[in-house]
Protein backbone atom coordinates (compact mmCIF):
# COMPACT_ATOMS: atom_id res chain seq x y z
CA UNK A 1 0.00 0.00 0.00
CA UNK A 2 1.42 3.34 -1.01
CA UNK A 3 1.83 5.78 1.83
CA UNK A 4 1.60 9.53 1.47
CA UNK A 5 5.19 10.69 1.00
CA UNK A 6 4.78 13.87 2.96
CA UNK A 7 3.35 12.00 5.90
CA UNK A 8 6.20 9.52 5.85
CA UNK A 9 8.59 12.46 5.73
CA UNK A 10 6.91 14.04 8.75
CA UNK A 11 7.11 10.77 10.63
CA UNK A 12 10.83 10.42 9.91
CA UNK A 13 11.55 14.02 10.87
CA UNK A 14 9.82 13.52 14.19
CA UNK A 15 12.26 10.80 15.16
CA UNK A 16 15.35 12.21 13.45
CA UNK A 17 14.89 15.75 14.76
CA UNK A 18 14.26 14.48 18.27
CA UNK A 19 17.50 12.53 18.37
CA UNK A 20 19.38 15.39 16.71
CA UNK A 21 18.19 18.06 19.09
CA UNK A 22 18.68 15.86 22.13
CA UNK A 23 22.20 14.97 21.00
CA UNK A 24 22.96 18.67 20.83
CA UNK A 25 21.75 19.21 24.37
CA UNK A 26 23.68 16.23 25.69
CA UNK A 27 26.84 17.35 23.90
CA UNK A 28 26.66 20.70 25.70
CA UNK A 29 27.89 18.84 28.79
CA UNK A 30 31.23 18.08 27.21
CA UNK A 31 33.94 18.62 29.80
CA UNK A 32 31.51 19.88 32.45
CA UNK A 33 30.01 16.76 33.97
CA UNK A 34 30.30 15.76 37.63
CA UNK A 35 32.48 12.67 37.09
CA UNK A 36 34.93 11.79 34.35
CA UNK A 37 33.06 8.56 33.67
CA UNK A 38 29.97 10.67 32.99
CA UNK A 39 31.84 12.85 30.52
CA UNK A 40 32.56 9.69 28.62
CA UNK A 41 29.04 8.34 28.91
CA UNK A 42 27.43 11.60 27.85
CA UNK A 43 29.71 11.96 24.84
CA UNK A 44 28.86 8.41 23.93
CA UNK A 45 25.14 9.04 24.23
CA UNK A 46 25.37 12.18 22.10
CA UNK A 47 27.37 10.26 19.54
CA UNK A 48 24.84 7.44 19.29
CA UNK A 49 21.99 9.93 18.99
CA UNK A 50 23.66 11.77 16.13
CA UNK A 51 24.36 8.51 14.42
CA UNK A 52 20.67 7.70 14.62
CA UNK A 53 19.75 11.16 13.35
CA UNK A 54 22.00 10.65 10.40
CA UNK A 55 20.08 7.53 9.46
CA UNK A 56 16.60 8.92 10.08
CA UNK A 57 17.29 12.24 8.39
CA UNK A 58 19.12 10.54 5.57
CA UNK A 59 16.04 8.48 4.84
CA UNK A 60 13.84 11.54 5.31
CA UNK A 61 15.85 13.40 2.69
CA UNK A 62 15.53 10.43 0.36
CA UNK A 63 11.76 10.30 0.82
CA UNK A 64 11.54 14.05 0.32
CA UNK A 65 13.19 13.52 -3.06
CA UNK A 66 14.60 17.03 -3.50
CA UNK A 67 18.21 15.94 -3.65
CA UNK A 68 18.95 17.07 -0.13
CA UNK A 69 21.18 15.36 2.41
CA UNK A 70 20.76 14.66 6.11
CA UNK A 71 23.12 17.59 6.69
CA UNK A 72 20.91 19.91 4.67
CA UNK A 73 17.97 18.96 6.82
CA UNK A 74 19.93 19.36 10.03
CA UNK A 75 21.66 22.62 9.26
CA UNK A 76 19.46 24.54 6.86
CA UNK A 77 15.96 24.40 8.29
CA UNK A 78 14.61 27.01 10.68
CA UNK A 79 12.88 26.17 13.96
CA UNK A 80 9.38 25.92 12.53
CA UNK A 81 10.46 23.09 10.24
CA UNK A 82 11.78 21.01 13.11
CA UNK A 83 9.56 18.19 14.32
CA UNK A 84 11.32 17.10 17.48
CA UNK A 85 9.24 16.64 20.61
CA UNK A 86 9.56 19.59 23.00
CA UNK A 87 11.12 17.40 25.68
CA UNK A 88 14.34 17.17 23.68
CA UNK A 89 14.86 20.91 23.28
CA UNK A 90 14.45 21.87 26.94
CA UNK A 91 17.57 23.32 28.54
CA UNK A 92 19.78 20.86 30.38
CA UNK A 93 19.26 22.21 33.86
CA UNK A 94 21.41 20.35 36.34
CA UNK A 95 22.91 16.93 35.72
CA UNK A 96 19.92 15.22 37.31
CA UNK A 97 17.44 16.90 35.01
CA UNK A 98 19.58 16.04 32.01
CA UNK A 99 19.65 12.38 32.98
CA UNK A 100 15.97 12.26 33.82
CA UNK A 101 15.08 13.83 30.47
CA UNK A 102 17.34 11.25 28.88
CA UNK A 103 15.57 8.44 30.67
CA UNK A 104 12.09 9.71 29.78
CA UNK A 105 13.15 9.85 26.15
CA UNK A 106 15.16 6.62 26.15
CA UNK A 107 12.19 4.76 27.59
CA UNK A 108 10.00 6.03 24.77
CA UNK A 109 12.59 5.16 22.18
CA UNK A 110 13.06 1.69 23.57
CA UNK A 111 9.33 0.98 23.29
CA UNK A 112 9.09 2.57 19.86
CA UNK A 113 12.15 0.86 18.37
CA UNK A 114 10.85 -2.48 19.61
CA UNK A 115 7.87 -1.94 17.32
CA UNK A 116 9.66 -0.33 14.42
CA UNK A 117 11.93 -3.30 13.88
CA UNK A 118 8.79 -4.98 12.56
CA UNK A 119 7.91 -2.05 10.29
CA UNK A 120 6.49 -2.79 6.86
CA UNK A 121 9.01 -0.25 5.55
CA UNK A 122 12.29 -2.10 5.27
CA UNK A 123 14.45 0.97 5.66
CA UNK A 124 12.61 1.95 8.83
CA UNK A 125 12.94 -1.59 10.15
CA UNK A 126 16.63 -1.60 9.35
CA UNK A 127 17.38 1.69 11.07
CA UNK A 128 15.32 0.63 14.07
CA UNK A 129 17.25 -2.62 14.32
CA UNK A 130 20.54 -0.74 14.47
CA UNK A 131 19.24 1.90 16.84
CA UNK A 132 17.51 -0.49 19.19
CA UNK A 133 20.77 -1.95 20.49
CA UNK A 134 22.05 1.49 21.41
CA UNK A 135 18.72 2.49 22.86
CA UNK A 136 18.57 -0.60 25.06
CA UNK A 137 21.94 0.35 26.48
CA UNK A 138 20.94 4.00 26.95
CA UNK A 139 17.75 3.27 28.80
CA UNK A 140 19.47 0.85 31.13
CA UNK A 141 22.11 3.42 31.92
CA UNK A 142 19.86 6.43 32.35
CA UNK A 143 17.43 4.37 34.45
CA UNK A 144 20.29 3.35 36.75
CA UNK A 145 21.37 6.94 37.23
CA UNK A 146 17.81 8.11 37.85
CA UNK A 147 17.42 5.42 40.50
CA UNK A 148 20.79 6.23 42.03
CA UNK A 149 20.03 9.93 42.32
CA UNK A 150 16.36 9.59 43.22
CA UNK A 151 17.16 7.10 45.97
CA UNK A 152 20.37 8.83 47.03
CA UNK A 153 20.74 11.69 49.49
CA UNK A 154 17.96 13.97 50.59
CA UNK A 155 19.29 16.68 48.29
CA UNK A 156 19.64 14.44 45.26
CA UNK A 157 16.13 13.13 45.84
CA UNK A 158 14.73 16.65 46.06
CA UNK A 159 16.47 17.74 42.91
CA UNK A 160 15.24 14.72 40.99
CA UNK A 161 11.68 15.23 42.17
CA UNK A 162 11.88 18.88 41.04
CA UNK A 163 13.26 17.77 37.70
CA UNK A 164 10.37 15.34 37.34
CA UNK A 165 7.82 18.08 38.07
CA UNK A 166 9.44 20.21 35.39
CA UNK A 167 9.75 17.50 32.76
CA UNK A 168 6.62 15.46 33.24
CA UNK A 169 4.27 17.84 31.35
CA UNK A 170 6.47 17.26 28.30
CA UNK A 171 6.06 13.48 28.32
CA UNK A 172 2.52 13.40 26.94
CA UNK A 173 3.48 14.89 23.58
CA UNK A 174 5.34 11.72 22.63
CA UNK A 175 2.04 9.84 22.63
CA UNK A 176 -0.03 12.34 20.66
CA UNK A 177 -1.66 10.87 17.59
CA UNK A 178 -2.62 12.77 14.49
CA UNK A 179 -3.27 12.03 10.83
CA UNK A 180 0.41 11.37 10.20
CA UNK A 181 0.41 8.66 12.84
CA UNK A 182 -2.84 7.26 11.53
CA UNK A 183 -1.35 6.95 8.05
CA UNK A 184 1.77 5.27 9.43
CA UNK A 185 -0.28 2.84 11.46
CA UNK A 186 -2.53 2.04 8.56
CA UNK A 187 0.46 1.34 6.32
CA UNK A 188 2.04 -0.81 8.99
CA UNK A 189 5.07 1.48 9.07
CA UNK A 190 4.77 2.50 12.70
CA UNK A 191 2.44 1.99 15.63
CA UNK A 192 -0.01 4.63 16.76
CA UNK A 193 1.98 6.38 19.52
CA UNK A 194 -1.02 6.26 21.84
CA UNK A 195 -0.73 2.47 21.76
CA UNK A 196 2.75 2.67 23.32
CA UNK A 197 1.66 4.45 26.43
CA UNK A 198 0.81 1.43 28.51
CA UNK A 199 4.18 -0.23 28.00
CA UNK A 200 5.90 3.10 28.61
CA UNK A 201 4.00 3.79 31.80
CA UNK A 202 4.85 0.37 33.11
CA UNK A 203 8.57 0.81 32.43
CA UNK A 204 8.78 4.39 33.64
CA UNK A 205 6.55 3.68 36.61
CA UNK A 206 8.76 0.84 37.74
CA UNK A 207 11.97 2.87 37.47
CA UNK A 208 10.57 6.00 39.09
CA UNK A 209 9.14 3.93 41.91
CA UNK A 210 12.54 2.37 42.49
CA UNK A 211 13.93 5.89 42.42
CA UNK A 212 11.39 6.80 45.13
CA UNK A 213 10.08 9.57 42.90
CA UNK A 214 6.42 10.57 42.66
CA UNK A 215 4.88 11.13 39.26
CA UNK A 216 3.02 14.48 39.27
CA UNK A 217 -0.75 14.23 39.17
CA UNK A 218 -1.74 16.68 36.44
CA UNK A 219 -2.73 15.28 33.07
CA UNK A 220 -1.68 18.41 31.20
CA UNK A 221 0.75 17.90 28.33
CA UNK A 222 2.63 20.55 26.40
CA UNK A 223 2.64 20.04 22.68
CA UNK A 224 3.59 21.73 19.44
CA UNK A 225 7.03 20.24 18.75
CA UNK A 226 6.15 17.20 16.67
CA UNK A 227 3.72 19.25 14.57
CA UNK A 228 6.11 22.22 14.47
CA UNK A 229 3.23 24.53 15.42
CA UNK A 230 4.77 25.87 18.59
CA UNK A 231 8.25 25.02 19.79
CA UNK A 232 9.67 26.53 22.94
CA UNK A 233 11.78 29.67 22.80
CA UNK A 234 14.80 27.49 23.50
CA UNK A 235 14.99 25.82 20.10
CA UNK A 236 15.84 28.98 18.18
CA UNK A 237 18.84 29.66 20.38
CA UNK A 238 20.01 26.07 20.02
CA UNK A 239 19.81 26.24 16.23
CA UNK A 240 21.62 29.56 16.13
CA UNK A 241 24.62 27.73 17.58
CA UNK A 242 24.20 24.47 15.74
CA UNK A 243 23.76 25.94 12.28
CA UNK A 244 26.18 28.83 12.58
CA UNK A 245 28.93 27.65 10.26
CA UNK A 246 26.64 26.35 7.55
CA UNK A 247 24.69 29.60 7.61
CA UNK A 248 27.71 31.89 7.68
CA UNK A 249 29.63 30.00 5.00
CA UNK A 250 27.05 28.45 2.73
CA UNK A 251 27.97 25.86 0.14
CA UNK A 252 31.28 24.73 1.61
CA UNK A 253 32.50 21.19 2.02
CA UNK A 254 33.69 20.45 5.49
Amino acid at each position, binding site marked *: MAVDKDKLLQFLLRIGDST*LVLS*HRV*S*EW*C*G*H*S*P*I*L*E*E*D*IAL*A*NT*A*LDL*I*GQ*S*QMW*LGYAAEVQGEGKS*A*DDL*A*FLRDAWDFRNVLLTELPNG*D*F*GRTLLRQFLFDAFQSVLMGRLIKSSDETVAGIAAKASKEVAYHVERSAD*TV*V*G*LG*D*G*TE*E*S*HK*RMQQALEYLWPYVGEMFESDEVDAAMAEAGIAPDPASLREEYDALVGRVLAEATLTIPEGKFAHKGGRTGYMHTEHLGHLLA*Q*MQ*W*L*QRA*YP*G*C*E*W
Partner: protein
Amino acid sequence: SPEEAAFQDKIDNDIKIEPRDWMPEDYRRTLIRQIGQHAHSEVVGQLPEGNWITRAPTLERKMILLAKVQDEAGHGLYLYSAAETLGVSRDEMVEMLHEGRMKYSSIFNYPTLNWADIGAVGWLVDGAAIVNQVALQRTSYGPYSRAMIRICKEESFHARQGYHAIMKMAFGTPEQKKMAQDAVNRLWFPAIMMFGPNDSESTHSEQSMAWKIKVKSNDELRQQFVDQTVPQIEYLGLDLPDPGIKWNEERGHYDFSDPDWSEFFNVIKGNGPCNVDRMNARVKAWEDGQWVRDGLMEHARKRATRKVAAE
Protein backbone atom coordinates in the same frame (compact mmCIF):
# COMPACT_ATOMS: atom_id res chain seq x y z
CA SER B 1 71.88 1.77 49.13
CA PRO B 2 71.55 -1.77 47.76
CA GLU B 3 67.89 -1.07 46.98
CA GLU B 4 68.85 1.93 44.92
CA ALA B 5 71.47 -0.03 43.08
CA ALA B 6 69.05 -2.85 42.31
CA PHE B 7 66.50 -0.28 41.12
CA GLN B 8 68.94 1.50 38.84
CA ASP B 9 70.11 -1.86 37.58
CA LYS B 10 66.61 -2.76 36.45
CA ILE B 11 66.28 0.58 34.74
CA ASP B 12 69.56 0.19 32.95
CA ASN B 13 68.54 -3.25 31.75
CA ASP B 14 65.16 -2.01 30.53
CA ILE B 15 63.22 -4.01 33.08
CA LYS B 16 59.99 -2.19 33.94
CA ILE B 17 59.42 -0.95 37.44
CA GLU B 18 56.11 -2.20 38.79
CA PRO B 19 53.87 -0.74 41.53
CA ARG B 20 55.04 -3.09 44.28
CA ASP B 21 58.71 -2.67 43.50
CA TRP B 22 60.87 -0.50 45.66
CA MET B 23 61.51 2.92 44.13
CA PRO B 24 63.15 6.15 45.27
CA GLU B 25 60.76 8.72 46.69
CA ASP B 26 61.81 11.21 44.05
CA TYR B 27 61.12 8.77 41.24
CA ARG B 28 57.65 8.24 42.65
CA ARG B 29 57.03 11.95 43.08
CA THR B 30 58.31 12.81 39.63
CA LEU B 31 56.10 10.16 38.09
CA ILE B 32 53.02 11.29 39.99
CA ARG B 33 53.63 14.84 38.83
CA GLN B 34 54.17 13.79 35.23
CA ILE B 35 51.38 11.23 34.91
CA GLY B 36 48.97 13.41 36.87
CA GLN B 37 49.72 16.38 34.68
CA HIS B 38 49.20 14.21 31.64
CA ALA B 39 45.85 12.97 32.99
CA HIS B 40 44.72 16.50 33.82
CA SER B 41 45.67 17.57 30.30
CA GLU B 42 43.34 14.98 28.82
CA VAL B 43 40.52 16.22 31.01
CA VAL B 44 41.06 19.95 30.52
CA GLY B 45 41.70 19.24 26.87
CA GLN B 46 38.03 18.43 26.47
CA LEU B 47 37.20 22.11 26.87
CA PRO B 48 38.77 23.73 23.80
CA GLU B 49 37.40 20.98 21.57
CA GLY B 50 34.07 20.91 23.37
CA ASN B 51 33.82 24.59 22.50
CA TRP B 52 33.05 23.59 18.90
CA ILE B 53 30.98 20.43 19.35
CA THR B 54 27.73 22.38 19.32
CA ARG B 55 28.87 24.26 16.21
CA ALA B 56 30.44 21.47 14.17
CA PRO B 57 29.43 22.02 10.55
CA THR B 58 28.22 18.53 9.59
CA LEU B 59 26.80 15.53 11.38
CA GLU B 60 29.86 13.49 10.51
CA ARG B 61 32.31 16.11 11.78
CA LYS B 62 30.32 16.33 14.97
CA MET B 63 30.50 12.57 15.41
CA ILE B 64 34.23 12.50 14.81
CA LEU B 65 34.76 15.27 17.31
CA LEU B 66 32.55 13.67 19.93
CA ALA B 67 34.36 10.37 19.52
CA LYS B 68 37.69 12.12 19.93
CA VAL B 69 36.67 13.95 23.07
CA GLN B 70 35.27 10.73 24.44
CA ASP B 71 38.60 9.00 23.78
CA GLU B 72 40.43 11.76 25.58
CA ALA B 73 38.30 11.46 28.66
CA GLY B 74 39.08 7.75 28.46
CA HIS B 75 42.81 8.48 28.34
CA GLY B 76 42.32 10.58 31.42
CA LEU B 77 40.88 7.53 33.12
CA TYR B 78 43.79 5.22 32.18
CA LEU B 79 46.29 7.80 33.30
CA TYR B 80 44.62 8.49 36.63
CA SER B 81 44.63 4.73 37.18
CA ALA B 82 48.32 4.54 36.34
CA ALA B 83 49.03 7.36 38.78
CA GLU B 84 46.91 5.67 41.44
CA THR B 85 49.28 2.69 41.38
CA LEU B 86 51.80 5.11 42.86
CA GLY B 87 49.64 5.69 45.92
CA VAL B 88 47.75 8.86 45.13
CA SER B 89 43.99 8.90 44.54
CA ARG B 90 42.21 10.51 41.63
CA ASP B 91 40.33 12.81 43.99
CA GLU B 92 43.58 13.97 45.54
CA MET B 93 45.00 14.75 42.13
CA VAL B 94 41.84 16.61 41.11
CA GLU B 95 42.03 18.63 44.28
CA MET B 96 45.66 19.51 43.57
CA LEU B 97 44.69 20.59 40.06
CA HIS B 98 41.90 22.80 41.33
CA GLU B 99 44.11 24.39 43.91
CA GLY B 100 46.80 25.10 41.34
CA ARG B 101 49.28 22.66 42.88
CA MET B 102 49.29 20.49 39.76
CA LYS B 103 49.42 21.64 36.16
CA TYR B 104 48.06 20.58 32.81
CA SER B 105 49.55 21.14 29.42
CA SER B 106 49.70 24.83 28.61
CA ILE B 107 48.50 24.23 25.09
CA PHE B 108 44.96 24.01 26.43
CA ASN B 109 45.20 27.57 27.66
CA TYR B 110 44.89 28.73 24.07
CA PRO B 111 41.44 29.28 22.60
CA THR B 112 39.81 27.49 19.67
CA LEU B 113 38.57 30.37 17.55
CA ASN B 114 37.50 28.99 14.22
CA TRP B 115 36.49 25.59 12.94
CA ALA B 116 39.91 24.93 11.44
CA ASP B 117 41.33 25.08 14.96
CA ILE B 118 39.63 21.76 15.61
CA GLY B 119 41.50 20.18 12.73
CA ALA B 120 44.69 21.91 13.80
CA VAL B 121 44.36 20.71 17.37
CA GLY B 122 44.06 17.12 16.17
CA TRP B 123 46.90 17.44 13.72
CA LEU B 124 49.37 19.68 15.58
CA VAL B 125 48.52 19.23 19.23
CA ASP B 126 47.78 15.52 19.15
CA GLY B 127 50.63 15.21 16.68
CA ALA B 128 53.06 16.78 19.13
CA ALA B 129 51.63 14.71 21.95
CA ILE B 130 52.24 11.53 19.98
CA VAL B 131 55.87 12.34 19.30
CA ASN B 132 56.25 12.63 23.03
CA GLN B 133 54.15 9.61 23.85
CA VAL B 134 55.77 7.27 21.35
CA ALA B 135 59.02 7.91 23.18
CA LEU B 136 57.26 7.35 26.50
CA GLN B 137 56.11 3.89 25.49
CA ARG B 138 59.61 2.90 26.55
CA THR B 139 59.42 4.71 29.88
CA SER B 140 60.65 2.72 32.87
CA TYR B 141 57.45 2.62 34.92
CA GLY B 142 55.33 -0.33 33.78
CA PRO B 143 51.77 0.99 34.20
CA TYR B 144 52.71 4.30 32.58
CA SER B 145 54.42 2.59 29.67
CA ARG B 146 51.42 0.34 29.07
CA ALA B 147 48.99 3.29 29.26
CA MET B 148 51.13 5.07 26.68
CA ILE B 149 51.02 2.14 24.29
CA ARG B 150 47.27 2.03 24.50
CA ILE B 151 46.86 5.79 24.17
CA CYS B 152 49.26 6.15 21.26
CA LYS B 153 47.10 4.02 19.02
CA GLU B 154 44.08 6.26 19.49
CA GLU B 155 46.07 9.45 19.32
CA SER B 156 47.53 8.69 15.94
CA PHE B 157 44.03 8.07 14.69
CA HIS B 158 43.06 11.51 16.03
CA ALA B 159 46.03 13.16 14.41
CA ARG B 160 45.14 11.65 11.06
CA GLN B 161 41.54 12.75 11.40
CA GLY B 162 42.68 16.23 12.34
CA TYR B 163 44.89 16.41 9.30
CA HIS B 164 42.01 15.33 7.07
CA ALA B 165 39.77 17.97 8.61
CA ILE B 166 42.25 20.76 8.01
CA MET B 167 42.95 19.43 4.52
CA LYS B 168 39.28 20.00 3.69
CA MET B 169 39.68 23.55 4.90
CA ALA B 170 43.00 24.23 3.16
CA PHE B 171 41.65 22.87 -0.11
CA GLY B 172 38.22 24.48 0.34
CA THR B 173 36.91 27.98 -0.35
CA PRO B 174 39.18 31.00 0.14
CA GLU B 175 37.53 31.64 3.47
CA GLN B 176 38.09 28.08 4.60
CA LYS B 177 41.72 28.30 3.56
CA LYS B 178 42.01 31.54 5.50
CA MET B 179 40.67 29.76 8.58
CA ALA B 180 43.22 26.99 8.16
CA GLN B 181 46.05 29.50 7.83
CA ASP B 182 44.82 31.44 10.84
CA ALA B 183 44.70 28.25 12.89
CA VAL B 184 48.22 27.20 11.93
CA ASN B 185 49.58 30.67 12.59
CA ARG B 186 48.11 30.80 16.07
CA LEU B 187 48.83 27.22 17.09
CA TRP B 188 52.30 26.62 15.68
CA PHE B 189 54.38 28.16 18.43
CA PRO B 190 52.17 26.91 21.26
CA ALA B 191 52.48 23.43 19.73
CA ILE B 192 56.26 23.41 19.57
CA MET B 193 56.35 24.76 23.11
CA MET B 194 54.52 21.61 24.21
CA PHE B 195 57.89 19.81 24.37
CA GLY B 196 58.97 22.10 27.19
CA PRO B 197 61.87 24.51 27.51
CA ASN B 198 65.11 24.09 25.62
CA ASP B 199 67.31 21.34 27.03
CA SER B 200 69.68 23.93 28.39
CA GLU B 201 66.85 25.41 30.48
CA SER B 202 65.01 22.27 31.47
CA THR B 203 65.13 21.74 35.22
CA HIS B 204 63.99 18.19 35.79
CA SER B 205 65.45 16.58 32.73
CA GLU B 206 68.74 15.04 33.72
CA GLN B 207 67.49 12.85 36.54
CA SER B 208 64.39 11.91 34.54
CA MET B 209 66.56 10.74 31.68
CA ALA B 210 68.69 8.65 34.01
CA TRP B 211 65.56 7.07 35.43
CA LYS B 212 64.13 6.65 31.94
CA ILE B 213 61.02 8.56 32.96
CA LYS B 214 61.96 10.69 30.02
CA VAL B 215 63.48 8.89 27.10
CA LYS B 216 64.35 11.67 24.71
CA SER B 217 65.22 15.29 25.36
CA ASN B 218 62.82 18.18 24.77
CA ASP B 219 64.84 19.52 21.86
CA GLU B 220 65.18 16.13 20.18
CA LEU B 221 61.44 15.62 20.31
CA ARG B 222 60.73 19.15 19.15
CA GLN B 223 63.03 18.71 16.15
CA GLN B 224 61.34 15.45 15.27
CA PHE B 225 57.93 17.15 15.36
CA VAL B 226 59.09 20.07 13.21
CA ASP B 227 60.66 17.72 10.70
CA GLN B 228 57.48 15.70 10.28
CA THR B 229 55.13 18.68 10.27
CA VAL B 230 56.73 21.21 7.93
CA PRO B 231 56.22 19.05 4.82
CA GLN B 232 52.60 18.59 5.86
CA ILE B 233 52.07 22.34 6.03
CA GLU B 234 53.64 22.65 2.61
CA TYR B 235 51.45 19.91 1.23
CA LEU B 236 48.40 21.86 2.44
CA GLY B 237 49.58 24.86 0.45
CA LEU B 238 49.63 27.02 3.54
CA ASP B 239 52.24 29.63 4.38
CA LEU B 240 54.76 28.51 6.97
CA PRO B 241 53.86 30.06 10.32
CA ASP B 242 57.49 30.87 11.09
CA PRO B 243 59.73 32.70 8.61
CA GLY B 244 62.70 31.01 10.28
CA ILE B 245 61.73 27.56 8.98
CA LYS B 246 64.30 26.42 6.44
CA TRP B 247 65.72 23.06 5.44
CA ASN B 248 69.26 22.68 6.73
CA GLU B 249 71.02 20.31 4.38
CA GLU B 250 73.98 19.95 6.67
CA ARG B 251 72.00 18.99 9.77
CA GLY B 252 69.48 16.98 7.79
CA HIS B 253 66.78 18.82 9.74
CA TYR B 254 64.61 21.90 9.47
CA ASP B 255 65.85 24.99 11.23
CA PHE B 256 63.15 27.01 12.96
CA SER B 257 62.81 30.02 15.20
CA ASP B 258 62.94 29.70 18.93
CA PRO B 259 59.46 30.42 20.30
CA ASP B 260 58.87 33.32 22.66
CA TRP B 261 59.74 31.57 25.90
CA SER B 262 58.61 34.50 27.99
CA GLU B 263 55.12 33.76 26.71
CA PHE B 264 55.59 30.10 27.67
CA PHE B 265 56.53 30.91 31.23
CA ASN B 266 53.81 33.54 31.43
CA VAL B 267 51.16 31.01 30.40
CA ILE B 268 52.46 28.51 32.95
CA LYS B 269 52.24 31.24 35.58
CA GLY B 270 48.52 31.53 34.83
CA ASN B 271 48.49 34.32 32.28
CA GLY B 272 47.53 32.38 29.20
CA PRO B 273 44.51 33.49 27.22
CA CYS B 274 42.26 30.88 28.83
CA ASN B 275 43.86 29.74 32.11
CA VAL B 276 41.27 31.38 34.29
CA ASP B 277 38.29 30.28 32.22
CA ARG B 278 39.56 26.70 31.97
CA MET B 279 40.10 26.35 35.71
CA ASN B 280 36.81 28.10 36.50
CA ALA B 281 35.00 25.69 34.18
CA ARG B 282 36.59 22.64 35.81
CA VAL B 283 36.09 23.82 39.37
CA LYS B 284 32.49 24.76 38.64
CA ALA B 285 31.84 21.35 37.08
CA TRP B 286 33.32 19.71 40.17
CA GLU B 287 31.40 21.82 42.66
CA ASP B 288 28.12 21.66 40.76
CA GLY B 289 28.55 17.90 40.61
CA GLN B 290 29.11 17.38 44.32
CA TRP B 291 25.48 16.49 44.96
CA VAL B 292 25.58 13.96 42.12
CA ARG B 293 28.65 12.18 43.48
CA ASP B 294 27.20 12.28 46.98
CA GLY B 295 23.84 10.99 45.78
CA LEU B 296 25.26 8.08 43.83
CA MET B 297 27.58 7.16 46.68
CA GLU B 298 24.76 7.22 49.20
CA HIS B 299 22.64 5.06 46.91
CA ALA B 300 25.44 2.52 46.60
CA ARG B 301 25.72 2.44 50.37
CA LYS B 302 21.97 1.93 50.77
CA ARG B 303 22.01 -0.91 48.27
CA ALA B 304 24.89 -2.63 49.97
CA THR B 305 23.12 -2.34 53.32
CA ARG B 306 19.91 -3.72 51.90
CA LYS B 307 21.77 -6.58 50.35
CA VAL B 308 23.43 -7.49 53.61
CA ALA B 309 20.09 -7.22 55.41
CA ALA B 310 18.51 -9.56 52.88
CA GLU B 311 21.18 -12.21 53.21
